[in-house]
């Protein structure tokens, strides 16, 4: 009996040691397919060992970061932690995400923007909008229309659901000053914030979801419809309109619970029912379709995905004034001064759109550059381009990085070159590497 117990102990020791190696082996050999984590995750790169890096401790730091992100079954460990924090303690574990009342999830920036904690000052806003007005007037001389759109924001729309911990004193916000000054300066302007707040009292379906960052699909349909009508009126044309065939009322789709997905929980949150209009666009016969250049943040994706470009003859989406997406074309091009000049020549409408959280930097460089281009001073965006090219040249030289890029390219169904560019842009945008 005693002998048998000793044997069992020995087996237990070796069993434990064997188990202990599994995350390491899985991380290196990927025996079992693992579910990926959602959200923006910084990729850590495997550093190259050299004497200097070791002595200075750089190698160890980067290696630790790398191993911490690469060991086997990590997604399950993270989900376990997040589920425990959420279910037991009511906390959410994702960067800049806070949980409000009644389970509402917010990006913290929306709360900041609502309370005016990112206020840039009236003078700066005035300066910015005077430039916008100048651009509008310059374009108008060439028969082109400029339109400035402030999207409805979750912070403004759902402020009653803010968490108690974010109960700041309300001060003047960028949105309030932008709104007032844009109207005063005569800028073509759509304020979806106030529009959605008006609709809120009588809206049949939610315009904002509990677990999503952006307006709902239903809200996006209203926005798309409104933009088309505004352009029709402003350009005095008859454009193909958006028609709603029916509305499906169903559990929130992926796009309307993107924050929830980024929380990486094991079990989904309580389902929210949302409205999904089934839409079609009027035939273009006998209609006029302007070409539209859009400089916008991620809110425009919901309109782009609704195929709002069916009402336009051509549509370019300058995402954060950095990557240019075009309807019917896979991949993207990079924004630069030549392309901006060309676009300002080519398009009938220039639409600048952003949420209140982005007003502090609205245009992301477009306003200054467009002003210069229109003043025939095309010296734009070169520094960013140079950095991007350098980084794109570097990525293939890093074996670990390029391996990761290849994997992501397969996952996203795009070419490795495109993925290299995407990765490089992401890094530059987040300023993660100091080349």
């Amino acid at each position: 009996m005693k002998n048998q117990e000793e044997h069992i102990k020995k087996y237990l020791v070796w069993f434990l040691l064997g188990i202990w190696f599994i995350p390491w082996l899985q991380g290196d050999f990927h025996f079992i397919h693992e579910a990926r984590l959602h959200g923006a995750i910084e990729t850590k790169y495997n550093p190259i060992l050299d004497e200097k890096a070791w002595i200075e401790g750089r190698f160890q730091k980067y290696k630790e970061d790398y191993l911490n992100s690469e060991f086997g079954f990590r997604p399950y460990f993270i989900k376990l932690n997040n589920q425990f924090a959420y279910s037991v303690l009511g906390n959410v574990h994702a960067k800049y995400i806070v949980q409000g009342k009644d389970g509402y999830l917010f990006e913290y920036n929306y709360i900041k923007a609502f309370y005016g904690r990112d206020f840039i000052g009236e003078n700066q806003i005035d300066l910015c909008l005077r430039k916008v007005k100048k651009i509008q007037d310059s374009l108008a001389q060439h028969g082109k229309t400029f339109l400035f759109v402030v999207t409805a924001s979750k912070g403004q729309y759902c402020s009653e659901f803010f968490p108690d911990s974010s109960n700041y004193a309300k001060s003047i916000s960028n949105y309030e000053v932008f709104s007032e000054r844009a109207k005063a300066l005569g800028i073509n302007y759509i304020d979806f914030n106030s529009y959605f707040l008006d609709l809120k009292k009588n809206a049949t379906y939610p315009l904002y979801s509990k677990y999503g960052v952006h307006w709902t699909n239903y809200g996006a349909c209203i926005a798309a419809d409104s933009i088309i009508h505004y352009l029709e009126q402003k350009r005095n044309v008859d454009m193909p309109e958006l028609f709603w065939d029916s509305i499906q009322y169903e559990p929130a789709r992926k796009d309307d619970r993107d924050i929830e997905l980024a929380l990486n929980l094991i079990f989904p949150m309580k389902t929210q029912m949302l409205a999904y209009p089934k839409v079609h666009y009027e035939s273009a016969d006998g209609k006029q379709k302007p070409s539209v250049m859009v400089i916008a943040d991620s809110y425009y994706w919901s309109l782009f995905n609704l195929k709002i470009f069916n009402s336009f003859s051509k549509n370019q989406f300058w995402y954060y004034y950095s990557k240019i997406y075009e309807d019917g074309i896979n991949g993207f091009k990079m924004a630069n001064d030549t392309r901006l000049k060309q676009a300002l020549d080519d398009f009938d409408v220039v639409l600048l759109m952003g949420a209140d959280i982005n007003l502090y930097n609205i245009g992301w460089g477009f306003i200054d550059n467009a002003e210069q281009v229109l003043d025939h001073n095309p010296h734009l965006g070169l520094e960013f381009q140079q950095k991007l090219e350098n980084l794109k040249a570097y990525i293939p030289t890093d074996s670990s990085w390029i391996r990761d890029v290849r994997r992501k390219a397969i996952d996203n169904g795009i070419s490795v070159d495109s993925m290299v560019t995407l990765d490089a842009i992401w890094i530059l945008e987040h300023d993660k590497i100091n080349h």
Partner: protein
Amino acid sequence: MVFSSIVFILYFLPLFLLCYYVVGKKYKNFVILAFSIFFYSWGAPKFIFVILSTTFLDFYLVQWMDATTDNWRRKTYLILSLSLNLGLLIYFKYSNFFIENVNGILKLAGVGPVHWIKLILPIGISFYTFETITYVVDVYRKVHKPLNHFWDYQTYIILFPKLIAGPIIRYHELADQISDRSQNETDENKLTGFYRFAIGLGKKVIIANHLGAYADQVFAADYSTLHSEIAWAGILAYTFQIYFDFSGYSDMAIGLGKMIGFKFPENFNNPYVSGSITEFWKRWHITLGSWMRNYLYIPLGGNRVDSTTRLYFNLWIVFLVSGLWHGASWSFIVWGAYHGLFLVMERSFLNTLYARMGKWFSIPITFMVVLVGWVFFRIEHLPDAMTFLKCMFTFKSGLVIHLNTDYFFYLFFAVLFSFFTISKSGIDLQDKIYFDTYGINRHYLMTACSMLLMVICIAMITSSGFNPFIYFRF
């Protein structure tokens, strides 16, 4: 490399254990040594050369000291060795402090400052210096013979489980285990060592890190505007953070030692159930207290002195040194003096008072004394510490840092695990987990619980990233 990091738990440790278990007895110390050098140089690559070269010199000084019978020479070698070790500690740890104070005085006198490049403290220097001192003193006192081979001495000093945050193991406690620990290398010890490691990791990762996150927020605030309640919440969080952090580390070290056949001394014994500061120091960082008693207090005369004044003086010296050992700043000195003051008061009258009151009064009073002391420990700048104390005791309103569910959840477990041994059944339970011999069914249960604990800890570590131990800076 810290114990509560992925690189240690999932890479270094399993590889080390595999190598250690598969090699023959002859090569086991070599495996320990190689992995320990790698372990140290991972975190402090520049300082590995300092530790290797000074221990080399120290080893031969002690060899020569042991070889000679001439008392004068023996004393000379002893002084040389102590000067070498203490000199290094003073140079690396106290030079910055000394120069800062000199510059402060020069400034008052209207003289320009002494220019000085700030030194970086080698990790664990306070711990291993004290161990090198025990080596030379134990050999000098003929408590134990010196080690025969340099690499054996190096193994004693650099043994990674206890290298950077203790326990401080006196030479004679470990000397025989360096050459032969076959009796302790049992599967029973490997398993119970693993359980102990998992418990220690849990203390650090689950309790200390979470309470520490709140404490960090509070101590980063402007103390003059802080709400008194928040100041109390912050220092309470820190009080438990430091205990679970340090005792967790000690548990991990003891567990690791056990897994490879070493028997390390206990370092904590439920310090927060102490009924006096005297008792607290018998339960908190026991190996430091023991070192101070044997290598400082007793050489100063200990209890066997002619006058009470001298006795109190000795006690104060010990606690001032103890404070200074923890860090080179005035607040650590004040912290040591503060504990010394209570120790002296207990000797003169407080102990009698405590005895009359009973433990239900003396324990909370002692806990409060310790808690207030942690203010000096946490806030290195003395005027800031005073502002914080003022904030605590003026009961004023001000800046509120939201206390969320996390805080109360982890505080509940911290209180529970800190005070459960206040009762007899709590002590019995603790003894069953830590010290009893296990039956096979209990092994199954503990293996499952420990694995679960490890999974939870890994989940928390990988979600929160890198989290260094507090005691690394001492």
